[in-house]
């Protein structure tokens, strides 16, 4: 039986686990995890001493997870290896219908539409598995590694996302974290994390440009660092430009292993595959146009923010593709010798995530002020977008705008919320639609509906509308229609708890200890209660069981023994509890009429 708590509830601080926040770089190709310990970032290693964990999940034919990251075994002939899942985060099926797109962008070829809605699932053996679940497997793995390194449960994280992740992709990331048992304390953009990593390591001040060229996307961010405050001034980028494009160029040139060719050409004058040979100079000529474009995007952002090239104090290079020497050359040509490369581009993002986690968990003078990368607006009559929050606005931000009815006696107003810079809604990303009802019938243009856009510090949007006369309201937390519902998430959480016993062993143990401590506190209090009649013999037996249980708690490893000791203790105190319940009930009944009871 369970203990019955009749006194005021007691809150017990089991440990400091609640304040522990880890930093995670959830990358397309690799993921990393760490924490700031004694003012130094410590990255967590797996049992093979790797701190870079490939973002790959291995499934068997039944859709069971066989391994993640360095656990996987490519020799398993019947396994399915799922990688690059991040490219599908928050995407709808219509986004990826074009199979060429899938191939060009290295998307998992299993991607398909399994439920005739917009959800993308992967067909893995017999099972359809959603993108969010697969991403959650990687996060679960990172969580486990952190817990093994720290020897305590972890439940909170700062996770980095590309600056150009839209609302859908951000929400999908949060959902997969939830599924992995992690509360996302903050999402921060990857370039911002990089600036944080660089700035804090070097105690920098001034204006910095972060040039982040990943596999699939190009992001650029400009930040101003003043006394530990990191203010993002603006971000720009190209969602369709990345290292993959260079691979494609080399593939079209005839190379079977374009990735290896690309990586080799960053360090060598020539690359040869069988009879096919290419020089570094030829390769640079082939990718020159794309690189020039990234530099142009940087210049445009500087222009846009009314800054001058000479004001920049440094350029931070991020992302594996930024290792290509031509990029450095081009940037120096344009901006001068201000390239900073004393942090490894593969680890700079996670270092920033760890610092931000540290900033949020401990009292720290550092503060990060981020912006929203894309404008948010409402579709007007004729399909034109009325922007409500402009891109590069510092978050959190709230904006209200009034709208009115189009037709006489119009009683509902439908709001279509979109994200993007295009003038027409059809060219922007559709985020959500909602209705404001019960507008009193009036001549067109008289009703006033105030629409408020709220962007929180994660950059997640809530929209509410209020009709001014009737105060009729509607509110929506913007989630794209193809994301998972809370119900689905809950079900998946329960399923995942059932399926992966070993994964959650440490969490169960922690929970068991919290419960046991709780019970102990109540029992000890009852033992002191002189109103309860407890025989000397029983008191002795109970005390014995208490010390047994306390010993197991301090050992903190044997969950079975702990459960058993707790049950034995409870069976000993049962008579005492029954008496307590009895007394408590009779106390309540005395002097009260039966009807009221």
């Amino acid at each position, binding site marked *: 039986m369970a203990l019955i708590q009749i006194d005021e509830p007691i809150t017990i601080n089991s440990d400091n686990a609640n304040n522990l926040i880890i930093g995670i770089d959830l990358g397309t190709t690799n993921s990393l995890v760490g924490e700031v310990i004694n003012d130094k970032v410590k990255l967590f290693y797996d049992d093979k001493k790797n701190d870079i964990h490939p973002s790959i999940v291995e499934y068997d034919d039944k859709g069971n997870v066989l391994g993640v990251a360095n656990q996987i075994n490519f020799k398993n002939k019947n396994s399915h290896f799922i990688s690059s899942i991040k490219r599908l985060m928050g995407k709808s099926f219509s986004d990826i219908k074009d199979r060429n797109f899938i191939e060009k962008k290295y998307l998992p070829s299993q991607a398909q539409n399994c439920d005739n809605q917009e959800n993308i699932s992967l067909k893995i053996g017999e099972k359809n598995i959603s993108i969010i679940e697969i991403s959650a497997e990687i996060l679960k793995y990172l969580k486990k590694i952190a817990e093994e390194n720290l020897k305590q449960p972890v439940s909170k994280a700062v996770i980095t996302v590309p600056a150009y992740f839209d609302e859908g992709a951000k929400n999908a990331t949060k959902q997969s974290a939830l599924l992995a048992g992690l509360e996302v304390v903050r999402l921060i953009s990857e370039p911002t994390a990089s600036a944080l990593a660089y700035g804090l390591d070097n105690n920098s001040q001034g204006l910095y440009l972060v040039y982040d060229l990943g596999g699939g996307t190009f992001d650029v961010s400009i930040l101003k660092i*003043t006394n530990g405050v990191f203010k993002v001034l603006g971000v720009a980028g190209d969602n369709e430009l990345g290292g993959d494009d260079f691979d494609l160029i080399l593939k079209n040139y005839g190379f079977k292993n374009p990735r290896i060719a690309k990586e080799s050409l960053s360090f060598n004058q020539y690359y040869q595959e069988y009879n096919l040979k290419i020089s570094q100079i030829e390769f640079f000529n082939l990718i020159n146009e794309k690189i020039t474009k990234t530099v142009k*995007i940087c210049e*445009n952002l500087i222009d846009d923010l009314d800054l001058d090239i000479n004001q920049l104090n440094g350029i931070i290079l991020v992302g594996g593709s930024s290792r290509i020497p031509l990029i450095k050359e081009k940037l120096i040509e344009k901006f001068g010798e201000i390239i900073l490369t004393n942090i490894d581009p593969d680890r700079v993002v996670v270092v920033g995530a760890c610092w931000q986690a540290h900033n949020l968990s401990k009292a720290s003078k550092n503060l990060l002020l981020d912006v929203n990368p894309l404008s948010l607006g409402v579709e007007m009559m004729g399909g034109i977008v009325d922007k409500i929050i402009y891109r590069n606005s*510092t978050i*959190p*931000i*709230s904006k209200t705008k009034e709208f009115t009815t189009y037709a006489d006696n119009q009683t509902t107003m439908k709001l279509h919320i979109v994200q993007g810079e295009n003038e027409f809604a059809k060219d922007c990303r559709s985020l959500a639609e909602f209705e404001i009802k019960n507008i009193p019938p009036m001549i067109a243009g008289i009703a006033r509906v105030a629409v408020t856009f709220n962007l929180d*510090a994660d950059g997640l949007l809530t929209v509410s509308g209020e009709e001014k006369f009737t105060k009729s309201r509607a509110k929506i937390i913007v989630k794209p229609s193809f994301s998972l519902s809370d119900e689905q998430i809950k079900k998946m959480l329960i399923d995942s708890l059932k399926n992966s016993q070993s994964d959650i062993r440490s969490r169960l143990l922690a929970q068991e200890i919290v419960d046991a401590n709780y019970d102990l506190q109540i029992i000890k209090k009852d033992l002191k209660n002189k109103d309860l009649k407890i025989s000397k013999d029983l008191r002795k037996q109970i005390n014995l069981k208490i010390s047994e249980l306390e010993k197991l708690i301090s050992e903190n490893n044997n969950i079975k023994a702990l459960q058993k000791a707790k049950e034995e203790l409870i069976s000993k105190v049962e008579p005492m509890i029954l008496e307590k319940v009895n007394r408590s009930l009779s106390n309540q009944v005395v002097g009260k009429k039966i009807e009221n009871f």
Partner: protein
Amino acid sequence: MSNFFILFDLEKKFAIDGNFLERKYLELQSKFHPDKSNHNNPNKAMEINEAFRILSDDFSRACYLLQLENIDLVNDDKAIDPDKSMLLEILELREHIETIENKNVIDNLLRHLKQTIEDLIADFARAYEDNQLQLSATFLLKAKYLKKALEDLKIKKQKLL
């Protein structure tokens, strides 16, 4: 009544000390940002962000000063009656922008527009300090139209990339 100038300990006038404004902004956010504050009042951080955005930009600050005098050029299309010749001038400019395809021409026009807007805001500031609110508003309205043209031109430039 509270306003953004009071929030930043500034006098309500057009000319402000940008460095002081920025220092004050960072000071306030270090206190009220959700990452820093236990009061759990995200609205305060939003207000500070909005106030800084408005006050740190010359054009927005000018519009805000007029809003405080109940002339709302930002949200109300009929706040003042626009001058006909000014409207025609803007119309011609927009037609001209439609036809440009050359990057250098765009760059020159961008520079020219930025300068004109700056001058108009300076004209606004003088009229405003002289308490000629209606006159100051006409300068600002023209600046508003030119700013829209400037934005369109910037988009056009990006597309040429």
